[in-house]
C-alpha cells in the first residue's frame, strides 16, 4: 500500500518518480522524530543514528549482492552517476587511459557528465542501439580499446524501458579488464540485480524510483576501486562523500527497497500483464507504434509514438482528463529537441515529437488503464482533427511513417 491521500488522478508517471510507500513514510517520520543525532558523534544519540544507517547499508547491499562497504549514499541517481563517472575518469587519467564507451540512450546525468569529460580531453564512443533500443554486446566488445577506462551502459532505459544486456557487457568488461558502470536508477527495486554475478563494478540507484524518498540514492563501487569525491569535506561515507548523513532518508530508502524486493516477482508478473494490456490497447490507434522492445523492457514501461500530433498538447489534454503522463524525458526545460533516445531508435523528428510514456506502478489497475486507453484514443483523434500534418498525411501529400 502506498501512503498518502488518494488523488482522483490516474498516475502513470512512475518512471519519473513514485509515491512513497506507507512504510517508507513511516520510517522517515520515525527517524525525523527520534533519531536526529549526528551519526558522526560519539554520544549515544549519534551512535544510534549511525546504527540506523549502517543497518540500512547492509540491507541495501544485500538486495544487490554487494557488501556494505561497497555502498556509498548519495543525494540521488544523478549524483551517483556523476561520481561513478569521475571515479573511472580519475583512474583512467592516472593510467593514461582516456577513452570511454557508452550508449546513445543514456540518461542526461551520464550523458552530460561524459560531455564534460569530453571537454577535458576524454574520447567518448557512443554506441548505437537497435531499433528496439538495445545495445549490441558485440559493439561493446569492438569498441573497447587499450586506452578504454570505462564502459557505462544503463541497466534499463528511462524513456522506453528497454533492458540492456548488462551481464553480457559485464562479462566482456571483466575479460578486457575495463571498469563497467551501469546506471540502474530505473532497474533497482524493479528487476533482480546481482552485481557479482553480472560483473558490475559500479552501479547507481535512486530511492524515489522505488517508492522511497526523494533526495537520496546510492552508488555501489566494487571493493578495490578507489572512489573519487564529488563532494569534498567531512569524513562521512568513509571520506568519499561529505555532508551530514541524511539518516531518515537513508533508512526509508532501505525500507522501500526491501519492500520492493519482497514484492518484486509478484509485481513484475502483474505489471507485465498490465503493460501488455496497455500496449495492446494503444496499438488500436492507427498510425501509432510502440517504442522499444516489446519483451525486453521494464514491466512498468509503455512508450508510444503517434503520427501527426505533438506530445505536449497530448499530455496537457490527458492531464485535463486526470491522467498524469510524460513524453519520455520529463522536461519543461526549454529544450525543444525531441528525445535523443527516440532519435537513437530511428524515429525521425516528425514522429519523435508525438511520443507518450505511460509508466505503471504496483497500484495501477486495469480500470485505470482502460480509462487511459480511452482518453489517449480520444485525445489523439481530437488533435489529429485539426493537425495540418495529419491532413496532409491523409491527403497523400505526406507519407505515413508509422
Amino acid at each position, binding site marked *: 500500500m502506498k501512503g498518502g491521500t488518494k488523488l482522483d488522478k490516474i498516475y502513470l508517471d512512475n518512471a519519473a518518480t513514485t509515491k512513497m510507500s506507507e512504510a517508507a513514510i513511516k520510517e522517515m517520520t520515525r527517524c525525523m522524530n527520534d533519531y536526529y543525532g549526528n551519526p558522526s558523534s560519539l554520544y549515544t544519540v549519534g551512535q544510534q543514528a549511525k546504527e540506523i544507517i549502517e543497518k540500512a547499508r547492509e540491507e541495501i547491499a544485500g538486495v544487490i549482492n554487494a557488501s556494505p562497504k561497497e555502498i556509498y549514499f548519495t543525494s540521488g541517481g544523478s549524483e551517483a552517476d556523476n561520481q561513478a563517472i569521475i571515479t573511472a575518469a580519475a583512474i583512467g587519467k592516472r593510467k593514461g587511459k582516456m577513452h570511454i564507451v557508452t550508449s546513445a540512450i543514456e540518461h542526461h546525468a551520464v550523458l552530460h557528465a561524459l560531455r564534460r569529460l569530453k571537454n577535458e580531453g576524454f574520447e567518448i564512443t557512443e554506441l548505437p542501439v537497435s531499433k528496439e533500443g538495445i545495445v549490441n554486446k558485440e559493439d561493446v566488445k569492438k569498441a573497447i580499446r587499450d586506452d578504454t577506462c570505462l564502459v557505462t551502459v544503463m541497466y534499463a532505459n528511462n524513456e522506453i524501458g528497454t533492458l540492456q544486456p548488462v551481464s553480457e557487457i559485464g562479462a566482456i568488461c571483466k575479460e578486457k579488464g575495463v571498469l563497467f558502470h551501469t546506471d540502474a536508477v530505473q532497474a533497482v527495486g524493479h528487476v533482480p540485480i546481482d552485481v557479482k554475478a553480472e560483473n558490475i563494478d559500479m552501479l547507481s540507484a535512486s530511492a524515489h524510483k522505488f517508492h522511497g524518498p526523494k533526495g537520496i540514492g546510492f552508488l555501489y563501487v566494487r571493493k578495490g576501486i578507489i572512489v573519487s569525491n564529488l563532494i569534498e569535506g567531512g569524513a562521512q561515507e568513509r571520506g568519499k562523500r561529505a555532508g551530514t548523513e541524511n539518516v531518515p532518508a537513508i533508512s526509508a530508502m532501505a525500507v522501500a527497497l526491501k519492500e520492493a524486493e519482497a514484492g518484486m516477482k509478484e509485481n513484475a508478473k502483474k505489471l507485465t500483464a498490465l503493460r501488455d494490456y496497455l500496449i495492446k490497447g494503444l496499438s488500436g490507434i492507427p498510425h501509432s507504434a510502440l517504442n522499444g522492445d516489446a519483451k525486453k523492457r521494464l514491466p512498468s514501461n509503455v512508450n508510444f509514438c503517434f503520427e501527426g*500530433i505533438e506530445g505536449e498538447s497530448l499530455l496537457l489534454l490527458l492531464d485535463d482528463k486526470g491522467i498524469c503522463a510524460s513524453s519520455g524525458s520529463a522536461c519543461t526545460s526549454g529544450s525543444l529537441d525531441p528525445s535523443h533516445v527516440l532519435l537513437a531508435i530511428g524515429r525521425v523528428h516528425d514522429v519523435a515529437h508525438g511520443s507518450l510514456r505511460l509508466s505503471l506502478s504496483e497500484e495501477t489497475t486495469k480500470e485505470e488503464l482502460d480509462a487511459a486507453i480511452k482518453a489517449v484514443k480520444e485525445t489523439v483523434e481530437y488533435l489529429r482533427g485539426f493537425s495540418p500534418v495529419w491532413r496532409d498525411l491523409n491527403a497523400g501529400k505526406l507519407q505515413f511513417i508509422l
Partner: protein
Amino acid sequence: MALYSEKVMDHFRNPRNVGVIEDADAVGEVGNAKCGDIMKMYLKIDNDTVSDVKFETFGCGSAIASSSMATELIKGKPLSEVRKLTNKAVAEALDGLPDYKMHCSVLAEEAIHAALDDYESRTGKKTE
C-alpha cells in the same frame, strides 16, 4: 507559477476558429514537423477585411493557443491592421508565454503574414 497562464490554457482547451475554410481567399502555412510546430491559417477576405478565419495547428499547448488567439485578433479586422499584428501582441493577449515558448507567438504572426502574402500574390493587391 503554472506552466501557462489561464488565458493560454483557455485558448488551448477551447481553441477558437479551429478548422479549414475550403474556399479560403488566402492560406498561410509556416513551421515544420521537424521542429515540432506547424501552423496553417485560412482567411476569407471581403472588402479588405478578414471576414472569416480558421486554423490548423500541429504543436504544443502554446502553439495551439497562439494560433487561436491570433485568429481572434484578426477576425473582422481590415487587412492593413492585420499586417501590423505582432507576435508580442499575441503573447500579451494571452497574458504572456514562457520565454522558451515565445517562438509559438512568432509562428502565429508568421502564419498570418504568410496568408497575407498569399493573398497579395493571388490578387496583386497590397495589404500594408
